[in-house]
């Protein structure tokens, strides 16, 4: 099996770090609060903080490095997951429609998500594409989609 070639936009890594950082800070703050309220030992916030740094920095990095996609001759090929590894193949024939999405956070980072639907429902989601790239991919897939789709 040959891995797909294209990576996500680098900004998505920053975005994931930002999200993880916010969660980590919140968790550490909660732990500190628990110490103040005398519920847990003093050591807990340090452990939570350290854990948050490791997971929060490493998790998104691993995820970003593992995420690949490629529009091949007759299918869309996705490969993702640092811990739970998944590869997905979606033939153009089976694509019913394609949409791009942009949440507030995506917007702040100039990113878009691409979602591909087949008769089976949502078959694939590519997070963190540069807005221009996402639109290009969407148009490209729409053009070839659904030759035989129901």
């Amino acid at each position, binding site marked *: *099996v040959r891995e797909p070639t294209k990576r996500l936009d680098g900004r998505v890594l920053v975005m994931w770090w930002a999200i993880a950082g916010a969660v980590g800070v919140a968790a550490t703050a909660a732990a500190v609060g628990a110490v103040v309220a005398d519920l847990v030992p003093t050591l807990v916030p340090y452990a939570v903080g350290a854990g948050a740094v490791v997971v929060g920095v490493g998790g998104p990095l691993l995820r970003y490095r593992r995420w690949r996609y490629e529009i091949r001759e007759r*299918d869309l090929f996705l490969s993702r997951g640092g811990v*739970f*590894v998944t*590869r997905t*193949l979606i033939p153009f024939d089976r694509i019913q429609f394609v949409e791009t999405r942009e949440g507030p956070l995506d917007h702040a980072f100039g990113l878009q998500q691409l979602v591909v639907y087949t008769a*089976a*429902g949502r*078959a694939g989601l590519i997070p963190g594409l540069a807005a221009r790239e996402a639109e290009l991919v969407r148009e490209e897939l729409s053009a070839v989609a659904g030759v035989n789709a129901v």
Partner: protein
Amino acid sequence: MVEGVTRLGLGLIPLLAIEGRGRLVLLALLVGGLLTPVLRWLRFTYRVEGGTLVTAGGVLARRRRVIPLARIQSVDLVQKLRHRIFGVVELRIEVAGGSGTEAALVALAPEEAEEVRGLLLAAESDAPPGTEHPVLARMEGRDLVLAGVTGGRVAVVAVLLGYAQDLIADDALPSLLGRVQSLGLSAVVLVLALVGAFLLVAAAISLAATVLVLWDFTLEHHGDRLVITRGLLERRRSFVPLHRIQAVHLNENLLRRALGLGSLSVTVAGYAGPREEQQETSTLLPIGRRHEALSLARSIIRAPEGLGSERLEPAPRAALWRRVVPSVLVCGGAAIAAGIVWGSRGTLLLAPVALAGVAALAAWRSLGHRIEGRHVLVRSGVLVRKTTFVPLDNVGDLSLKASPVQLLFGLATLVFGLPKNKPRAIDLDRELAEQRFDRLGDALIRSPIPAKAK
């Protein structure tokens, strides 16, 4: 109409109690309540024209809906008790991509309903009228009994009965036991009799439910669709277009497997609706001999003759270790810990270790897959063993997945993306899984796909 009359009845009560202007307002509301259903009925029209079904209606907000006939997935005739009382039928229309019943013609005369159904599905029907429809399956009284007694309902009812037991006073059972024991019966016989009686009651309740739902179950082949008729109080006819069938499942629970029996169900695209209903309408064969069920399954999706569950590729040994090792580690660890704390009595916990081992073995043995031409067969499940026939032409996307544990044992799972269903070939050897992924992916994109009905 019925709705309006009820509302009127309820409204009359305060009407007598209130004086003055309030009475007038209430009266107006009341008349409105009665008139709404009448108006709704007057306003509602439908017609089939130019390849579309047009429904129009609504009292305050007018609504017009145009449904292309080609998008219609299935048309069901439903006759609930209230329909039977008035001698009418409800026609339910499911549409591709819809999230439920897209349109319903709630009350039609039976002949009209049949006619409309014919019109709606005209694009698809190819059988000339008046032809004999081959019967694929029919439930006799014996089958009903067998289905009821061996069905999963027995277990459900037994569990419910178990809860009901809590309602009985705590001392009722022991005192009863004491009284019966004084008659000279041994305790063992008594317990056995109690368990037997318990199961008997559960089976009887399940049987009654089965008779209600599956009474006179008939599966017929009409041209390019299957027609299922069933039900005692509520007669129900479902129509399943053959080309909308996404996958066929053979389900065998423990008891049925021991008896060589199984049931057959199908996943149909665009068939939403309430869960319970969806499940029932998708049953093609409530119970049957295993090989008969398999050959029916093959004929329905036109799978090659040899594709049965007899010669599946088993999961590799690693898949067994993957199941045994974690459960034995957990249970064994617990047993050792208990042994340390409670001494020799704690080692009784070793029994669950053996049990976990057996469960793991059973789970491993149930796994299997097979690829034959453009069809895939996958099997899994211990309590209910499920064998699924997947036509590759229906697969929307194909995935290869590996969890950390699977990676550790060199395993991977293939997932077939079908509408409403994701059959899995679980725990293949990693390398084999990658080969299969490549080969199936090729098959998905390269081979000509039979054009589906537009």
